[in-house]
């Protein structure tokens, strides 16, 4: 099918407030399914149709294709780069994108940062460092405009024959049947129908698919409005996240300054609940505000918009053969950078399960664990995001009094500094136990059952450097620490032997995994730890893999 190609210009357009044009434009191309439908009136059938080519839908499509599946991905637009959305991408998200072959350009282009500073008035009250620990391939966080992330995903898709990305294909109706889903798709050349065994709805917070199924999106709406601006300037502020409570340049409110690539800076200004979007977005009102903040006006406005924030989720992520993923399933406020990050983590949780189901290696019931694990993660993210937003924008006078008391005490006491909350930055979820095998013996270290395994630097037998995460298989991995009696192979998993073919010369693997000779770790395809044992026992390992695939183990 038509390979997507960027036909637009790569230069940020630097237009006036709210008037920036799309940065990258893609072409509509007629698909064979339209010919088939026109000729026969019968819809073509696909195993998987993804609705929405945002960061989440594209991640789903790439991961499925890399596992050998064919995917159709539909998007109603034909461009990316309108508006300014995510900028902070977390380590776990980058690790997922690295597995999919797309993190390198992101990290190269992105601004790496790890220090955040919180100010009250002019004074620094609390500072955090995200990753004092080295020995991870991916940085703790990068800042990168979402449109760059999306561009690299589009480019990656173009390399994969299994993905058919169709721009200006708008889903207008769906029929969720017991054996699959029928979609009606609107194009510039008229409508056509297609059938899908599975429909993955990655169509964003306003999810038309969710509406078509009549599903509710429930949660909390915050009253305060925030002005989000991207400004271009050369400045020697460090690449740190600076957050002000009640700064002299914006009395009574909060402000954020954070660096992006291309000399672009993200500015968030809290405006309170009464702010009028029309008025506030006018350059003659925006520019003086930012000028007060920066102390000069040598900047150009790239983008301005006004947001109010919500924390909402759908009740269930799986409805028959329709699966919700990303913002369509849950929405958070941006404080804590949990939107795109958690959406990409939904995608990785979903895809290996769907892949096993498509290949007949797991029962469709495994999809229930996607609902369980990712709705657990959504609740965690919504909880963190709600607390941050409540701290930043207190709802009642007494909440404000308490919040201000924390800020006041923070300059004098350590405990209060720990309460200052301008966004607890996105961390991956540690899943509840369903698919994991409980530890029979205690393990210390930073690896946790149910969580993604921590990376560690390793060395190959030929002396070259590698990373633990690069050594993990696309399917299940059994990681075994050599003790002289290495197993030869494991059914249903790739075996990797630390001290046999890869070596832990720095000791970081040993410390992070509390590894002793013979220790054995069962790692899921999404790199979450499913089980660990002090010694290799074939039956226990097989049972752990069966359990992680949603089957009842042979022996318990």
């Amino acid at each position, binding site marked *: 099918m038509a390979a997507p190609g960027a036909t637009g210009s790569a230069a940020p357009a630097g237009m006036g407030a709210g008037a920036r044009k799309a940065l990258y434009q893609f072409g509509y191309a007629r698909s064979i399914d339209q010919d088939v439908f026109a000729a026969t009136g019968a819809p073509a059938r696909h195993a998987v149709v993804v609705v929405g080519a945002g960061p989440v839908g594209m991640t789903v499509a790439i991961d499925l294709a890399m596992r050998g599946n064919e995917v159709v991905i539909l998007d109603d637009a034909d461009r990316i780069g309108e508006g300014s959305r995510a900028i902070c991408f977390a380590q776990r998200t980058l690790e997922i994108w690295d597995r999919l072959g797309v993190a390198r350009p992101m990290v190269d282009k992105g601004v790496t940062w790890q220090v955040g500073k919180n100010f009250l008035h002019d004074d620094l009250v609390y500072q955090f460092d995200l990753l004092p620990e080295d020995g991870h391939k991916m940085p703790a966080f990068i800042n990168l405009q979402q449109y760059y992330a999306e561009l690299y995903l589009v480019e990656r898709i173009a390399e994969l024959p299994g993905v058919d990305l169709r721009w200006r294909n708008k889903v207008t109706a769906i029929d969720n049947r017991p054996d699959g889903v029928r979609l009606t798709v609107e194009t510039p050349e008229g409508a056509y129908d297609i059938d899908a065994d599975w429909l993955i709805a990655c169509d964003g917070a306003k999810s038309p698919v969710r509406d078509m199924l009549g599903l509710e999106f429930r949660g909390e709406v915050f009253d305060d409005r925030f002005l989000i601006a991207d400004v271009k300037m050369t400045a020697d502020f460090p690449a740190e996240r600076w957050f002000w409570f009640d700064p002299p340049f914006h009395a009574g409110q909060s402000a954020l300054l954070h660096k992006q690539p291309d000399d672009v800076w993200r500015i968030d200004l809290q405006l309170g609940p009464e702010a009028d979007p029309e008025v506030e977005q006018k350059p003659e009102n925006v520019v003086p505000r930012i000028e007060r903040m920066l102390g000069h006006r040598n900047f150009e406005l790239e983008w301005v918009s006004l947001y109010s924030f919500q924390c909402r989720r759908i009740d269930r992520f799986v409805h028959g053969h329709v699966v919700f993923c990303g913002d369509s399933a849950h929405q958070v406020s941006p404080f804590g950078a949990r939107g795109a990050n958690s959406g990409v983590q939904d995608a990785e949780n979903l895809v290996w399960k769907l892949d096993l189901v498509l290949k007949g290696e797991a029962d469709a019931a495994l999809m229930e664990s996607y609902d369980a694990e990712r709705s657990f993660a959504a609740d965690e993210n919504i909880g963190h995001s709600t607390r941050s937003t409540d701290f930043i924008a207190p709802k009642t006078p*007494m909440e404000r*009094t*308490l919040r*201000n*008391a*924390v800020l*006041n*005490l923070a300059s004098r*006491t350590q*405990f*209060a500094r720990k*309460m200052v909350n301008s966004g607890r930055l996105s961390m991956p979820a540690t899943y509840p136990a369903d698919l994991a095998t409980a530890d029979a013996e205690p393990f210390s270290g930073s690896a946790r059952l149910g969580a993604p395994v921590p990376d560690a630097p390793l060395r190959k037998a030929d002396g070259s450097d590698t990373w633990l995460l690069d050594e993990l298989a696309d399917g299940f991995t059994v990681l075994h620490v050599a003790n002289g009696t290495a197993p030869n192979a494991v059914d249903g998993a790739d075996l990797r032997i630390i001290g046999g073919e890869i070596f832990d010369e720095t000791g970081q693997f040993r410390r992070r995994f509390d590894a002793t000779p013979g220790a054995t770790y069962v790692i899921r395809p999404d790199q979450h730890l499913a089980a660990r044992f002090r010694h290799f026992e074939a039956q226990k390992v097989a049972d752990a893999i069966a359990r992680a695939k949603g089957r009842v183990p042979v022996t318990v």
Partner: protein
Amino acid sequence: MTDLITTTQLADPDAAYNMLVDAHRDLSETQSADLNARLVLLLANHVGDICVLEQAVALAKTEL
């Protein structure tokens, strides 16, 4: 679980009460609210046990 202590711990209850009242003397309503908020936070941290705090919140909220 530790129970919230509701029997007196203070050798001189009158002096303790008087100290709190004194702390608020001559403060405006806003200042008093700020003072109370800071005190609550300091003491909550000193208690250091969320279960005890929950019991205190529940007891304090009765008849509100």
